[in-house]
């Protein structure tokens, strides 16, 4: 039987309360949201916090809305809520593509968006999704709110820009009318972590030329979950199979996968390239040339 080490538990009553507790107890205090990454780590004693601050009562941290040209997703929003959200799927189908293949429906009832990105597991699907979307994280500490672009959010496996006495409040995704987006993942069985996965967000002008593109990679060793070289190669080119193949080759070349029980390096590198191509193709098929005539 796996039993966590001793710890104290507090149910937070407000975001300010969380910050006060984190400040008072220092780095030995940890936020618990869905607990679906942290509790397993505590059971294995890979994590031994002295205080758990439960944020599950903080309804101001959950919910999905569109405001000021951004899709805003509260940190405590559950995977299942994001998957069920029409407004999220309408603007960014990549969010539904990814949520459909994250864990299983019961885990998705509990696991949160904020917990996923703060966990910063190298195989976390949403990390590659939010970097490809160029989302921005809103983080709150005693000094108030600050924003961190998702492309600067990940500081290595299990490390993020969120400081010990801070809490992630929400993720903001700038709306991009007409852009298409998609996420594709290869896993070994339903609900498993990715062997490799890729996300793409593509904007096209009236001639089908790529005006902006975001490519996110998961589980292939990119610390920032982003295929910048592939993006640079595509911008300004006509979105066709030749361009996608070149982008895929660049993504495969520049990723840094490691061998593990999910597969050897060359296989993962191959997947990084091929999944980049497929994500780009699917995102392009969903894009509207020249944006929406608004």
């Amino acid at each position: 039987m796996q039993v966590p080490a001793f710890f104290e538990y507090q149910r937070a009553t407000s975001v300010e309360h969380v910050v006060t507790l984190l400040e008072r107890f220092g780095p030995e205090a940890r936020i618990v949201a869905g607990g679906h990454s942290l509790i397993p780590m505590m059971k294995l004693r890979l994590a031994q916090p002295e205080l758990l601050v439960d944020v599950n009562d903080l309804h101001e941290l959950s919910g999905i809305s569109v405001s000021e040209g951004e899709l805003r997703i509260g940190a405590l929003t559950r995977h299942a809520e994001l998957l069920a959200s029409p407004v999220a799927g309408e603007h960014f189908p990549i969010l539904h593509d990814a949520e459909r293949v994250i864990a299983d429906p019961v885990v998705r009832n509990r696991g949160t968006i904020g917990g996923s990105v703060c966990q910063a597991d190298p195989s976390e699907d949403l990390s590659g999704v939010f970097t490809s979307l160029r989302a921005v994280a809103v983080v709150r500490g005693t000094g108030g709110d600050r924003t961190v672009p998702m492309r600067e959010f990940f500081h290595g496996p299990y490390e993020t820009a969120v400081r010990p006495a801070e809490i992630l409040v929400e993720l903001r995704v700038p709306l991009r009318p007409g852009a298409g987006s998609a996420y594709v993942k290869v896993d070994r069985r339903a609900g498993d972590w990715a062997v490799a996965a890729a996300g793409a967000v593509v904007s096209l002008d009236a001639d089908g030329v790529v005006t902006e593109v975001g490519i996110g990679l998961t589980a292939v060793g990119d610390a920032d979950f982003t295929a910048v070289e592939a993006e640079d190669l595509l911008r300004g080119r006509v979105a066709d199979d030749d361009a996608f193949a070149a982008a895929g080759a660049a993504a495969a070349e520049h990723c840094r996968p490691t061998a593990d029980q999910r597969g050897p390096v060359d296989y993962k590198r191959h997947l990084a390239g091929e999944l980049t191509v497929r994500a780009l193709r699917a995102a392009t098929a969903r894009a509207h040339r020249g944006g929406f005539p608004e």
Partner: protein
Amino acid sequence: MGVTVNGVEHVRDVEPRLLLVHLLRDELRLTGTHWGCDTSNCGACIVWMDGLPVKSCTVLAVMADGRSVRTVEDLEGPFGLDQVQQSFMDCHGLQCGFCTPGMLMTARKLLDDNPDPTDTEIRQAISGQICRCTGYRNIVAAIRHAADAEAVGRGDT
């Protein structure tokens, strides 16, 4: 802490590290909920918390403080077994029964939300659960059978 389980309020003094599955089984003696992999993979420990299926091996008991929990013991009503229980019996949806409490709880939730699911939807709903004996075909058939029986009961067909 205080938690309402199957409509009954229980107050207990527990260590924060106690898992919900052990509170239910060892403290409240509700052993219908099973405890299997302990790693949130098998689904034997699934109960409802505030109306949603969760894996209780990955929820701290204190996280259920002030919330309501429903376990497999609550499925049977004054008029007998719940339809999903009856259909699992009728369709041979279980052999050893280890996975069954979790399967029943997700099946009940699925049919409450979606009374006429496709086989694919049924398979997706139980995709976070493992059965080591029956094979999934009979479980899917049992859930389908329950959906059909309830449609007849409602006069839908």
